[in-house]
């Protein structure tokens, strides 16, 4: 019986991770510009692959391997926002535009004001 319960937990985590990863990829295809695509990749993508890694850790039934999978999960959660932040900052600094749907951009206004002052 505990076997079955464990298998169910692992299966739910696997399928959940797969669904999140798939939706993140769908977001990368459907969303209109780099910045919105980054939302999909950095949130749904991280949660998807993290869930799968944790599922692998639980399935092994070994404390050492589970802690390692947990450490990997924490590492992904820590690095994904840093990577997204760096790419977004670089893209904005290089001048890649936001989509036409954008309602406001405080950053561009500030940069233009600074450029005018100079």
């Amino acid at each position, binding site marked *: 019986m505990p076997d079955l319960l464990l298998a169910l937990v692992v299966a739910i985590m*696997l*399928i959940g991770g797969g669904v999140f*990863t798939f939706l993140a990829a769908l977001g990368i295809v459907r969303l209109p*510009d780099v910045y919105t695509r980054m939302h999909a*990749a950095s949130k749904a993508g991280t949660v998807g692959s993290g869930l799968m890694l944790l*599922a692998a850790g639980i399935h092994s039934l070994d404390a050492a391997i589970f802690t390692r999978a947990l450490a990997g999960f924490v590492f992904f959660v820590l690095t994904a926002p840093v990577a997204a932040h760096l790419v977004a900052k670089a893209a904005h600094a290089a001048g890649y535009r936001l989509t036409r749907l954008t309602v406001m951009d*405080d950053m561009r*206004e500030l940069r233009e004001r600074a450029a005018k002052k100079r």
Partner: protein
Amino acid sequence: MAAETIISGACAIALFLMCAAFFLTAWRVIKGPTLPDRIVALDMLTAIAIGFIAVVAIRTGFNLYIDIAIALGLVGFLATVAFARFVLSRGMQPGEEGAPDEAPAGNRTRRSGGHARRLH
């Protein structure tokens, strides 16, 4: 027995979903109008590969695969950081326009600027 059936079924579903995700993301890498789009998609490919490795670890029972997944995550993060530095140093190329549905720049700037001013 039932437990193994459940896990192998879940593995099959997860592998199928990730195959679809992989192809969608690869399409974005090929199509992606700008360099940052491609970088984001490549970062996503790394995440998908990590998921693949985790599923393979469950299917085969080789737990060493988890270490490989962690190492891949590290390398993927460093690659994204290096790419971001590259975008910053290269700047935007003249051929690349921004988002594909981009309105003329003057029009958009005026609209967003006005909105932001109202708020302050």
